[in-house]
């Protein structure tokens, strides 16, 4: 029974199948909202209001010609998209989505799983860098270098911002943090700065405008993805989508009190809260122009990092007052 439950957990909900369906839905939501903000219609033909467009794009890419550059290392070049997708899907398993019993730690809910999720969310960046580097193309290499340069900008603020609610909740376990804020929702008011720092850092992690520097099409063509085509590009696109779901799910867990209330109510809360975060991400995307890589690093260290430290300070003071 336990084996079947684990298999369902891995393959169906909240594993591969659910993450695939939900991430394509989120991509549609993002595209549609972004299009409406720009006074366009957005996807309209595939399915009702174009809801199946991301799935159609994925399937179309799967059947497209797949080219590996002559000078590229074939094994690494081909395995990177799969590794990247596997990493973000694994990260998705740690979100406290399935009616988790808070008092009993399990294989996907234990002290320190917040660190594991953050770590797993850092790895795709490395995958993208390697992908750019191994494409043996000027534009890809430049994109890969930009990916790493950006990592030094947003990673520290993201970690500080996400960990400060954990300090107040006095736990390194996502389910417990969510449960804590479920009991004391007013404490979330002290985490507002951290919430916005985390959202902006997530925007940078997902490489969306104003931080779409590594694949700025008018500058370096496709950036890291220049040489990727067919199935591999499809996997990379799916990886970015799932990363968006997991990233917004993580923010929703620590800043918006998680998804308690059983399978169905929990799922509903998950969808509403992640869509709320994604809507903010889309709004930022529509309201900004792309900034330069040097401006991005300066912005991160001049504004984001000090704000994250301020948030940490507030959290420590709040914790002192509570005790």
């Amino acid at each position, binding site marked *: 029974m336990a084996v079947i439950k684990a298999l369902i957990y891995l393959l169906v909900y909240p594993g591969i199948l659910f993450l695939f369906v939900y991430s394509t839905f989120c991509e549609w939501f993002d595209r549609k909202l972004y299009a409406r*903000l*720009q*006074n*366009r219609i957005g996807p309209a033909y595939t399915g009702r209001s174009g809801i199946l467009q991301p799935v159609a794009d994925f399937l179309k890419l799967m059947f497209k010609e797949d080219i590996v550059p002559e000078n590229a290392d074939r094994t690494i070049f081909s395995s990177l998209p799969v590794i990247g997708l596997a990493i973000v899907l694994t990260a998705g398993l740690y979100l406290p989505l399935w009616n988790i019993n808070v008092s009993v730690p399990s294989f996907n809910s234990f002290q320190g799983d917040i660190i594991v999720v953050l770590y797993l969310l850092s790895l795709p960046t490395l995958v993208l860098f390697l992908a750019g580097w191994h494409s043996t193309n*000027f*534009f890809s290499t*430049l994109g890969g270098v930009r990916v790493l340069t950006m990592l030094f900008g947003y990673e520290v603020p993201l970690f500080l911002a996400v960990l400060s609610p954990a300090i107040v909740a006095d736990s390194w376990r996502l389910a417990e943090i969510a449960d804590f804020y479920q009991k004391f929702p007013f404490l979330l008011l002290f985490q507002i700065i951290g919430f916005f720092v985390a959202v902006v850092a997530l925007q940078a992690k997902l490489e969306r*405008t*104003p931080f*779409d*520097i590594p694949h*700025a*099409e*008018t*500058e*370096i*063509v496709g950036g890291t993805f220049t040489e990727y085509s067919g199935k591999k590009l499809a996997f990379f696109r799916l990886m970015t989508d799932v990363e968006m779901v997991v990233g917004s799910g993580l923010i929703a867990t620590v800043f918006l009190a998680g998804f308690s209330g059983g399978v169905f109510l929990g799922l509903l809360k998950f969808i509403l809260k992640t869509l709320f975060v994604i809507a903010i991400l889309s709004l930022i995307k*529509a*309201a*900004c*122009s*792309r*900034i*330069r*890589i*040097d*401006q991005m690093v300066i912005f991160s260290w001049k504004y984001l990092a000090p704000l994250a430290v301020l948030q940490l300070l507030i959290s420590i003071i709040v914790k002192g007052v509570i005790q």
Partner: protein
Amino acid sequence: MKKITIPIGPQHPALKEPISLRITIEGEVVKHADVRLGYNHRGIEKLAESRTYIQNIYLVERICGICSHSHTTCYVQGVEKLCGLEVPKRGLYIRMLVCELERIHSHLLWLGVAAHEAGFDSLFMYTWRDREVVMDLLEIISGNRVHYAINTIGGVRRNLNEIQKEKILEGIKFLKKRTEYYTNLGTTEPTFVARIAGVGILPKEKAIALCAVGPTLRASGVSSDIRKDDPYAAYDEIPFDLCTADTCDVLGRVVVRVKELIESYKIVEYIIKNLPQGEIKVKAPRKIQPAEVVSRYEAPRGENIHYIKSNGTDKPERLKVRAPTLANYPATIEMLKNCFVADIPLIFAAIDPCICCAERFVELIDAKKGNSTVLSMAEIRKKYYSTETKRNVVWPL
């Protein structure tokens, strides 16, 4: 750090037309830039020599898809000077009206492209949506959205009626409101300003020395506009201001163009309200006595020059076109030095490049000896596209 050369073009997402920028970079900083032309040569000047003056109007219109009216006006003005024709006032005013509407559509288009190059797609979508209004106005006047075909030698081909005038005023009123919004957005939105302020510096002395033209020159603080310096049509009768900026960067070029939009709205309103009565054209002779003429015109991108030489027949002996983009290339090289890779598309887009306007002839350079030869269209055809020998097709005629 190792220097590498990256090819921007001939095919690149930042370029809408083929041109090759060879950029040598060190890290993210551009050390050297080089422009290679000649990917869009169509032999229009040679073709013009085998067509009559009337046919050539429609040929030069096809030099450019955006400033098509600039080329025809520049050309017909030259031909009118050659025959000594006096164009009726109403004809000149309608010509200027289309010219200003074209400037509006070109500048709105440019604003969108510049925003897209900076990754600000929302502004791009908005400006292009509003550009449809002025495109529709041009269609109301001429029946066409791109090649208006309104000019003819000795005047214009279509008259304006009251309904059209009303529609134009309505459209201009809407565009005025929108442009004020874009002025505000383009000069205050922090991420966009961060990208364009201080980028692509072209000092005043350099701009003059490198013969920059149009908004690029005016953004460097030089007040030069053919409409003021050497008024053609009836620009000496129309009150308008010359727009300059002194920041010498891409922000300045945005500001100059947005200010020019507002001036163009004023000009259009003035023209509609003060449209003289009378004929719109006079009859032109078919054959022109031997003479030569240089015609200047302020296109949306800068000074456009046509040189026409007649030889007593109904066809020109020589037509030479110097489009504004060509004049701006040397300045672009100067602007690209020591900028960031991310600024390349913005700086290049800021001259509003129209590559198909600028490509006029092919020069072959021997890579080993360094000597160059200019080929005529007939020679090129003989050398490279000799259809008779390669294909076994016999034409029926």
